[in-house]
């Protein structure tokens, strides 16, 4: 399992691995926001937490179609399915690799982009915390979507259509935490709910993803 | 014939209009597809039983 994780990380960092694509997308979306809503810093500071959460979510979505499709095309998935690893573990490791190469970098650059959007000073900690807790759920849910659409030739658009509604609860609670953090209001409830969603998806969804993958492999 | 709906005439009529159009369209499309599939199945079955 560690070998699989290391291989996926190595692949992501090698040329053409797509690492940094999500980051660049996140950066561009954030830069485009002031162009579209105007440069008033008071307005930007209100919408900053929501924009950053949405940007992170879309950047996450962008890399999902490579998550399993590459392994599918070159036959690695067939071979992994006949290997002594349980498919649930394979899927979980894939999610983890996706989070490490996409989610975690997003969390780390989010404060920088927060500065550009006049995020209030109180908001930075909670922005990072909410993203740190929320993005793993995005990766795990995304893996499920990728597993469903893995056999399809042009599955990218369908993948977005399937995954985005599933992202709603995570987005709502995550952005709520970031927003309340920025305005300095009570945020314990959404934070707990966000953590709950992440824990539950990590615990349960890999089973669904593996089941779906088995169906697609036969 | 239409009862006096007061200032909300347009609101109520448009709600009824759109809903009924949607429901009727669903029924009509379902029936059209049903008919088409039924005839297609008949022709396929005939062809296959002829050809063995």
């Amino acid at each position, binding site marked *: 399992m560690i070998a699989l994780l290391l291989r996926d990380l190595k692949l992501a960092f090698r040329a053409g691995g797509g690492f940094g694509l999500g980051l660049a997308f996140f950066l561009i979306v954030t830069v485009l926001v002031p162009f579209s809503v105007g440069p008033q810093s008071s307005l930007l500071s209100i919408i900053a937490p929501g924009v950053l959460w949405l940007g992170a979510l879309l950047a996450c979505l962008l890399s999902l179609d490579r998550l399993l499709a590459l392994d599918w095309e070159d036959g690695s998935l067939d071979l992994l399915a006949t290997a002594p690893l349980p498919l649930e573990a394979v899927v979980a490791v894939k999610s983890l690799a996706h989070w490490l190469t996409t989610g975690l970098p997003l969390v780390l650059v989010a404060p920088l982009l927060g500065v550009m959007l006049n995020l209030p000073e109180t908001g930075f900690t909670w922005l990072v915390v909410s993203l740190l807790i929320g993005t793993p759920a995005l990766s795990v849910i995304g893996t*499920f979507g990728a597993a*469903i*659409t893995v*056999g*399809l030739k042009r*599955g990218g658009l*369908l993948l977005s*259509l*399937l995954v*985005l*509604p*599933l992202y*709603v*609860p995570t987005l*709502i*609670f995550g952005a*709520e935490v970031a927003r309340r953090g920025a305005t300095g209001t009570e945020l314990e*409830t*959404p934070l707990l*709910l966000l953590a709950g*969603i992440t824990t539950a998806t990590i615990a349960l*969804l890999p089973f*669904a993803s593996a*089941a*779906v993958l088995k*169906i*697609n492999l*036969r | 014939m239409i*009862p*006096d*709906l*007061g*200032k*909300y*005439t347009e*609101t*109520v009529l*448009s*709600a*009824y209009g*759109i*809903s009924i159009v*949607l*429901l009727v*369209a*669903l*029924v009509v499309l*379902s*029936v059209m*597809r*049903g008919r088409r*599939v*039924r005839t*297609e*199945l008949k022709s*396929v*079955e005939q062809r*296959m039983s002829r050809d063995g």
Partner: protein
Amino acid sequence: MTITAKANSLWEYANPRKFLATSERLLPFFWLASTTCLVVGLVWGFFFTPDDYKQGSTVKIIYLHVPSALMAINCWLMMLAASLIWLVRRHHVSALAARAAAPVGIVFTLVALVTGAIWGQPMWGSWWAWDPRLTSFLILFLFYLGYVALWEAIEDPDTAADLTSVLCLVGSVFAILSRYAVNFWNQGLHQGASVMRVAAVTGSDTEEKVSNIYFFPLMLCIVGFVLLFIALVLYRTCTEIRARRIKALLARERANA
């Protein structure tokens, strides 16, 4: 004899041929009953019930809004049940019934959303308000779209049935989560907005009771929508069974060519 014992089992209807025969017999009744209920209920509601003292004549929208919203949710529940039956017992008819129901659910959700928006316009002053209930239906609509799109995208019928069934299961959990999330999220935005009580009329958990004058035509419309749903699903399932058989026959022809 075993045959008689089998004929008494409900699962007997999982046989496509038996299902087709039974549906053909039942369908005229359902079409007739649903049309009758809907026509009587809607005419009664539209022409013979008084305006509400607060909402004026817009209250008449209730006869479309409430039943369609109710069936939009029930349709998803029916799909969930059918998906479970497919996953556990592998009856093809069950999977096809779920597929047949989805577009019906989409239209009902659309009716609920459109009537909600039209009703909301004079009440809230805008066509769309991010009222929790309305928002939940919008999310439900997206789930329906994804479900139908997945069915359409997959070539192999059994794989499609399996994948959509799992999606339906997982989607149900997330739909419920979204419902709570939306409730939570909106509370912070529209606290104490009194016009929201309009929307409260539309649910079963409302504190306001719909008064008796509106009750009977409303019940008639609900029954009409339920019957219409059954008729549509039965009819469309028959269509799906035939389409599936065409596909199987063509595949067989190709294999033997």
